[in-house]
């Protein structure tokens, strides 16, 4: 059989207005994004958010209902999977059980008509540090080894885009940590574009240059991991990535570069740079104030002294305290009735605050963030991993 042509393409990957509907249900809804060539990109979201469907459309295993997929200048929207310069590391690895490891890795090269596969396969096996198992069958390998073989089988083809579908999901925690670093090392070494689909926020943040948080078929927010964590733009992102304290407040006024907010517990100053661009700044507008638990300082009310002039604070009492080793987690009820979580680093374990202690919580204005008041405070909370 004649070798079919494989689309030659390189460049950034573009998804343009991509939609995939199953009946009335839109698994992916008008999604557009650009993945720069050579970057490690993570699609992060809870199960059912459409991330796997997106990946399958890029791989050619699903046809989009609408929209385009491009690599550089080549439109591959309806290119057959076997003609795309795209390879996938499947969630269950999908290694061919009747072939040995060498044959598995050489499969793609042989299909493209490469005559001498020895050198490339050897290099790929060396990259994953599994040269010794070339003659074994997949079932004779451990889960972690199979995972790496699946990676080698894809990488050896030097695809324009490499897709990873929850590649570490089946591994235990320790091996997963190890593989995260390994994947990152390999990606840096080979310089291919990696698109990594995961529901594990830690995995996404550890490895990816850019993370896109997906929910209900759309991208909630996209950016470097630190940006997403420090400046979430939606309640979903704030809750799904790590933990956040969110409580409602009203805008009092815009004073220079600062927004003055107020709720029953008091007034807060927030720099405009920390306010989501989805918030309108007219006085009286309801917003959500957010602070990460580890950015809040907790002190006994009796020791608090004068109110800090440059910080935000609320007063309340400790409801519960749990000792976590590196930190202590406090649950504090404010005088106004809001619940706020605080992670306090364990510098001095003799100084823990027992439940019932009256406390003052304070944080620097630029450590908080402001979201639109229309957001659901609990969005993404029970889905966080």
């Amino acid at each position, binding site marked *: 059989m004649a070798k079919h042509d494989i689309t030659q393409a390189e460049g950034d990957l573009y998804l343009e207005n991509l939609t995939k509907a199953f009946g009335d249900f839109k698994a992916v809804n008008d999604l557009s994004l650009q993945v720069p060539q050579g970057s490690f990109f993570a699609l992060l979201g809870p199960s059912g958010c459409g991330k796997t469907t997106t990946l399958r459309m890029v*791989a050619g*295993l699903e046809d989009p209902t609408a929209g385009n997929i491009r690599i550089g200048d080549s439109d591959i929207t309806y290119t057959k999977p*076997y003609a795309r310069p795209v390879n*996938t590391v*499947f969630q269950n690895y*999908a290694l*061919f*059980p009747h072939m040995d490891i060498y044959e598995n890795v050489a*499969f793609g090269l042989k299909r493209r008509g490469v005559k001498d596969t020895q050198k490339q396969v050897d290099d790929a096996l060396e990259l994953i540090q599994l040269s010794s198992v070339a003659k074994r069958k997949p079932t004779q390998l451990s889960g972690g080894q199979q995972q790496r073989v699946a990676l080698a089988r894809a990488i050896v083809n030097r695809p324009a885009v490499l897709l990873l579908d929850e590649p570490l999901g089946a591994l235990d925690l320790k091996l997963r940590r190890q593989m995260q670093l390994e994947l990152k090392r390999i990606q840096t070494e080979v310089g291919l574009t990696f698109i990594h689909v995961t529901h594990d926020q830690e995995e996404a943040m550890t490895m990816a240059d850019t993370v896109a948080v997906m929910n209900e078929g759309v991208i909630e927010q996209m950016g470097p991991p630190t940006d997403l964590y420090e400046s979430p733009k939606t309640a979903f992102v704030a809750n799904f990535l790590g933990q956040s304290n969110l409580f409602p407040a009203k805008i009092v006024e815009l004073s220079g570069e600062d927004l003055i907010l107020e709720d029953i517990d008091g007034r807060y100053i927030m720099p405009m740079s920390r306010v989501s661009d989805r918030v309108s700044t007219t006085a009286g507008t309801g917003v959500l104030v957010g602070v990460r638990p580890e950015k809040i300082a907790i002190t006994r009310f009796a020791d608090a002294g004068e109110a800090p002039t440059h910080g935000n604070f609320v007063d309340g009492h400790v409801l519960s305290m749990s000792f976590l080793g590196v930190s202590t987690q406090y649950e504090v009820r404010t005088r106004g009735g809001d619940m706020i979580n605080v992670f306090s680093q364990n510098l001095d374990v003799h100084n823990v605050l027992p439940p019932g202690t009256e406390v003052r919580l304070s944080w620097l204005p630029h450590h908080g963030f402001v979201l639109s008041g229309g957001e659901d405070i609990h969005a993404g909370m029970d889905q966080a991993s």
Partner: protein
Amino acid sequence: MSVAAAIGDTMKDASGQEPPKKAGRFVPYMLMAPGMLWLAIFFVVPIASLFLTSLQTPVPGGQVGEFEQTFNFANYVNTLTDDTYYVPLIRSFVYSGIATLLALAIGYPLAYAIAFKSGKNRNLLLVMVIAPFFVSFILRTIAWRQILADEGFVVGILRSIGLVSETGGLYPSAFAVIMGLTYNFLPFMTLPIYASLERVDPRLIEASGDLYAHPFTGFRKVTFPLSMPGVVAGTLLTFIPAAGDYVNAALLGRPSNTMIGNRIEYTFLSVNDYPTAAVLSFILMACILAMVLVYVRRVGTEDLV
């Protein structure tokens, strides 16, 4: 007691399992006993008896069908060199070989369609594959006489388009015998192949496409090799009984289409030449065994998952 052993004991208690007793060692043998006993009585004993029969010689001056126990191995040589016996033997393997290939050619696509393309009709289609078993084997074979008869519509149509001459027919003939064998053993080919294909992970097929394999190449390199256990089982389940079959040749063939099964039946029941019939049975068994061994060796299923 080590900590691990202590934990082991605790877990055993928690799961309510008793430590294995000595009697437990005999449980597998007790489970095997009924089957072993059955095989001993209904397989080993008759085979031994048949083998002794194959070495008998006629009682000098005795009646037809009267034999005495000897160890006359010349019976085997005499039978193998007699063309009234070895020709039907060879014919049997030719007919059953063709029928097996035809059943594979029809059964594999059928099994493939049921396994991958049938959607929610899968169970209905499987029932339809098995449905012929609801009617007796003999009746179904006789029904083919009607269908292939000179007065039937099949021959009528074939004559009218000139595929069969005006005086020609399809029954009785070698064609009818092979067709009958193919028809009767098709489910034995289809079902094992279906069972193998159904276990092939569709994600492997996706993976082959993802790795630049055209769907046809993907089938050749991934799906088909993974279905080999079913193909081997199906061909054996078709070829072995078809080689020894005598119903199809008796009901759909001419005397010139006689298969070895018919010869054995005739020699046993009409000629009453028990030693020769027994010799034929053994030769048939030995040939099939040899072919199966070569076949399984060559195709080698032990590497498959």
